[in-house]
């Protein structure tokens, strides 16, 4: 198990380094269209082949990984922080605050976020550079994606509310704020980790779906979501199975995240 964890950690570090140095490692700019060779098979020039417009898939995967590996966790972190605040406080305090918080969470989960996201995109200025559209997309995902996690965290906090160590801390005269920050939240860490990890691939896939609806990362900037859209063309995938690379990478990276997490955090 330790070997697996170490291997996963090394792999993740290698991926992060590779994406950070994408400018050096990529054989071609991610937006450059080799129009004479669209849908090319893997070769020495194009390690994973090219897409429909002749863009080098390996370069796009490197840059897309940078985008997704930095921003999907950032969005997941934002969502988890909001969920921890809402769910943690609601679960710990209980009473009418919990009821209101949970009602708000339910309301948030029942809203048609897809249409709200479409509305938000429709009112945004048109001349946004791709980088800005990228930040907005993942920002929105983080801002809107906290509700399900909040319910889980609330349940966890509720379980801790009447635990012996919390009662002892209260009996010792600790303030509610201190109990929450120093006793409850550390004990919620496994739940928070789990929610954080679960949200990463969810946000990556949501970004891919939003791309289909026009809310994703705009061209020519690649992202895993955008690259996964290439799998819609199944005949192209059959012709060049290397097109599955973004899917494989997504699977491996999410698995590695699971492996590197300290197992004792999940023991509870």
């Amino acid at each position, binding site marked *: 198990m330790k070997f697996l964890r170490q291997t996963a950690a090394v792999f993740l570090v290698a991926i992060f380094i590779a994406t950070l140095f994408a400018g050096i490692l990529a054989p071609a700019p991610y937006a450059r269209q080799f129009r004479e060779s669209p849908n090319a098979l893997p070769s020495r020039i194009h390690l994973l082949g090219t897409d429909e417009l002749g863009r080098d898939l390996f370069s796009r995967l490197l840059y897309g990984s940078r985008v997704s590996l930095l921003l999907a966790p950032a969005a997941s972190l934002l969502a988890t922080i909001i969920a921890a605040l809402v769910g943690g406080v609601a679960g710990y305090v209980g009473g009418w605050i919990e009821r209101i918080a949970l009602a708000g969470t339910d309301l948030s989960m029942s809203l048609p976020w897809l249409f709200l996201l479409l509305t938000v995109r429709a009112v945004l200025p*048109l*001349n946004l550079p791709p980088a800005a559209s990228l930040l907005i997309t993942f920002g929105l995902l983080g801002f809107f994606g906290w509700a399900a996690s909040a319910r889980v965290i609330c349940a966890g906090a509720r379980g801790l509310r009447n635990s012996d160590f919390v009662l002892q801390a209260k009996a010792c005269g600790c303030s509610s704020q201190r109990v929450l920050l120093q006793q409850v939240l550390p004990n919620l860490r496994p739940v928070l980790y789990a929610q954080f990890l679960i949200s990463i691939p969810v946000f990556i896939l949501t970004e891919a779906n939003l791309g289909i609806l*026009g809310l994703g990362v705009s061209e020519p900037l690649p992202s895993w979501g955008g690259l996964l859209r290439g799998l819609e063309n199944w*005949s192209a995938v059959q012709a060049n199975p290397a097109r599955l690379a973004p899917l494989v990478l997504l699977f491996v990276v999410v698995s590695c995240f699971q492996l590197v997490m300290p197992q004792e955090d999940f023991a509870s």
Partner: protein
Amino acid sequence: MRTHRLALLAAGFLLAALPAKPQSGGELRFVLRSEPKTFDPMLVDEEASETIRYLTGGVLIRVNRKTQALEPELAVSWKVSEGGKKISFRAREGLLFSDGTPFTAEDVAFTMQKLMNPDLHSPTGDSFRSSQGPVRVTTANPRDVTIEFPAPVAGLERLFDQVAVVSSHSPKKEAAVLGPFVVAEYKSGSYVLLKRNPLYWKKDARGRRLPYLDSIRLDIQQNRDLELLRFKRNEIQLINSLDASYFENLAKEAPSAVRDIGPSLDSEQIWFNQVPSAPIPDYKKNWFRSTSFRLAISEAINRDDLCRVVFGSHARPAVGPVSPANLFWFDKSLQPHPYDPQAALRRLQQEGFRLDGHVLNDPGGHAVEFSVVTNAGNKYREQMAAMIQQDLEQIGIRLNIVTLDFPSLIERISRTFDYELCLLGLVNVDLDPSAQMSVWLSSSSNHQWNPEQKSPATSWEAEIDRLMQAQASTNDQNQRKRYFDQVQKIVWEQQPFIYLVNKNALVVISPALANTSPVVLRPQTFWNVETLYFSNQGRGASQ
């Protein structure tokens, strides 16, 4: 003996040279991509209902989809007079509706009166409405009918291709038809079954009554992937229009079934927002109103690459509003603007633009950057936008691509005018330029680059207005062609729409089906449905 052998051999060759005897029977199946909204031929407004009208309705005049010429159907002859205000028909004798009711000129009169009733709100009737006033229909005898409109109607006789004659006496009303098939069964959301009209009037060269097919089953199926899968399973025999990627996919598996018929009437184009009140900076409005700027953009786009890379060579660079598929109205003297980024740059420099490094600046020092909006989810348009983005980058222009859901896009281009450049397609179903009046008249709401103008904003738009009205007010086809050629030339010179490509018409036809002759006009594969039949080999496979 030798003479007899030679005679037998000659007879054998003669028999082999004769066309095979068509086989009667069998059920043709293909897909409707949406639910038909109506079975009333006068209220048809979408493709599924139009398909049923085409297969069941009898018309006075039919546009031959192959030659694009007019041919007599229920009318044996017709005459247009008073500059396109009046048309007289002589009806064919001895015909019966599918329920046995006789067909007379009275039915034509009844159909036209019903069609032109303003309370009916018939989309087909609207195309005849050139001005206010009543339409007079008179029948001199059971064969002759005259229809008089309040004002000349451009391309009048061609419009009758859409008018399915209904019976004035039949208790079945519009269910009694004069076309080759009748609606026998309809299951909402599932299928429409058409059966052979046993009283259909047409016969083949051997004197056999048409159509050859017993029935047509139209399965309602929106999903293109499933449609393709059903064709591969031999559950359907026709696919009327296909995307380039699906076409290529199927071409590998069934090369004898796919057919690229060449450029269709449909085009893809971009246009700049020239609305004076649009919420965009004034310096950008100045760019978009400049003919030189628009021409430079047109020259900087590599249309050949768009056709080859995006459409897999199943498209042609577009010239203007009329596709080369439109045999009569296309102006053959015009050619697509050549791809020449250096010429585009020179043209812009003459207007005071300058290239500083990799950024093009206007005379006021503003970097040339704008956005293109298109509908999200359309793979081809997104790819075209990405290619145009790279083409324009070569002359220092930064293009931002924005894909929007369709309602948001329509809101921006037709109400708020909050956009800079738009990429969309135009689906043409009518050959006659009068169908495009609402696009070209500056006062029209469909004059996309600057709609609903109180008076034409530019002299060339005023000239287009004049020419379009002139072509609509005469019935001399050659004169109309001269007027519309001038419109095409102005559009080519001014580039209010920058036409990109004409997509090819791509269809799929099962080899089991005989006597097929696909064309670019709708309905591409079954326009000659009366004479389609299953070959002996195909019969077994398709049943």
